[in-house]
């Protein structure tokens, strides 16, 4: 008996270590490539282009400075920020009311609307850039921040609707009803009760919209020429730019994403849990 028990315990311990080892390996699988990019960015240009590479980067900011002063790069960064902000504002201000309507009302056509929103998932949305390029020329929105932001909003809107829907659904309707019986009209009840409660979640979905826009390459590359965003700028310079510039640009793209995912991490799962249905 005791030996059998010992073997079981031994197996358990082994399984435990395998579990931990797998976890560590998978964490490394995610983190090491990012570190390599950043380490390249923090090396000197000659280190980046040398072979074999030194193990520890020389930790200087020469590449970053080079990137920021490189023709068009700073502008691209600024354009990216503008487009992402515009996307964020449009996606939330258009999506949140729809999410609220879906969570609070039963009405004719509700399902049709849900289907429309879900349908966007089956479509390769960046392709929207093609017809929009033509439309925008007609209305004078070609190569503008707002034009690109509109296409990015189309990408972010379905998420904004579904996420805000789940946020509002998470707040018992009785809270709102209680506010009505205590002297609020609909708007007051929303402002005094619902808004304070959904604000963190709303911020998270706004950040999510920001990230979607920040990362989008295809539409940005198709729709902008003078006002390139950072990804579009990097894509365009893939062929001719020196390696260290690419890596510095890549790091500039990655860093905000790291921070943003950290900020919204609590909401990621709640968002996707509901988006499943």
């Amino acid at each position: 008996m005791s030996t059998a028990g010992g073997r079981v315990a031994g197996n358990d311990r082994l399984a435990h270590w395998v579990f931990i080892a797998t976890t560590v390996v998978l964490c490394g699988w995610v983190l090491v490539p990012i570190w390599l990019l950043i380490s390249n960015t923090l090396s000197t240009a000659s280190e980046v282009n040398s072979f074999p590479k030194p193990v520890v980067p020389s930790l200087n900011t020469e590449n970053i400075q080079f990137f920021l002063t490189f023709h068009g790069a700073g502008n691209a960064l600024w354009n990216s920020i503008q487009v992402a902000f515009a996307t964020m504002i449009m996606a939330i201000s258009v999506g949140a009311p729809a999410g609220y309507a879906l969570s609070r009302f039963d009405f004719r056509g509700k399902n049709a609307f849900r289907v429309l929103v879900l349908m966007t998932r089956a479509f390769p949305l960046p392709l929207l850039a093609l017809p929009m390029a033509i439309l925008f020329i007609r209305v004078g929105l070609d190569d503008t921040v707002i034009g690109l932001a509109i296409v990015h909003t189309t990408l972010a809107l379905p998420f904004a609707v579904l996420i805000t829907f789940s946020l509002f659904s998470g707040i018992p309707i009785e809270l709102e009803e209680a506010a009505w019986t205590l002297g609020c009209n609909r708007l007051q009840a929303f402002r005094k009760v619902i808004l304070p409660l959904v604000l963190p979640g709303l911020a998270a979905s706004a950040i999510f919209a920001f990230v979607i826009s920040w990362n989008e390459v295809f539409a940005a590359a198709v729709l902008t020429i003078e006002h390139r965003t950072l990804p579009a700028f990097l894509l365009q310079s893939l062929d001719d730019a020196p390696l260290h510039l690419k890596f510095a640009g890549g790091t500039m793209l990655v860093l905000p994403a790291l921070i943003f995912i950290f900020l919204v991490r609590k909401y990621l799962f709640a968002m996707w849990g509901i988006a499943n249905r």
Partner: protein
Amino acid sequence: MNPRTLPYWLLAPALVFLCVFFLYPFSLVAWQAIATDEGVLTTQYLQRMASHWKFDRALTNTLLLTAAVVPIQLSLALLMATMVSKMNRGRDVVLYIWTIPLGISDLAAGLIWLAIFDQTGFLNSALFGLGMIEQPVTFLGYQNKTTIFVAVMLAEIWRATAIMLVILVAGIGLIPKEYNEAAEVFGAGRWKRFTKVTLPLLKPSLQTALVLRVILAFEVFAVVSALGGTNLPVLMGEVYDWQFKLQDSHIAASYALLILAISIAFTLLIMGLLRTPKGAQTT
């Protein structure tokens, strides 16, 4: 405001937005692919697309990449999701780390793996350090199509497993623990519990994860551009080239229509294969 019309007012902006900037443009794409500028229906653009020398390779590469990447991602995401569901200490940290790629753009992912596979990249340095090579290898040169393919595969797996992971973790969170405990009481082992209880109950999440992932796989573009340049043509890259370099938006639209068609076909296929019978849902 009248509670009967209020929901429609709230919905109106999103509805208008989707009609004007989603439904209408897509109909334009379809129209451009099958009609001339004068509005005459034609198949000449589709034919020209299909007879172009890069068409077969772009289509094959895209489908092959999807076929190679998605199953690995699905298994990996399932493994990670089950591991997360068993963690107590450190769960939050591990989850954060594993979901980091979710926020990283495909272009950045391409650049990250370029830092590894480039001629002066870390892989060459590492191999040299281990004494396995004496000269740097050009992994991403035009004569090494296979290593380009593998590099793109790795970058895609690295980047886009997180989205499946998040959906599956959320899905597993929705399954009440009692089902697994009941199965355990009835004598089901770990593997049996996973295949007979968890997986079937996870069907709706698997469906979402697969649909989303497969469609994204058909849109693969920036990773390939960063790693392979023109050496590994893919459908989305062809759209870009025809639109920009060759300035023929009809052919670009034809490619777009093709991507749209296979996306919809696969969505329907996945939804059909992973259908949950009515009344068998958990919630």
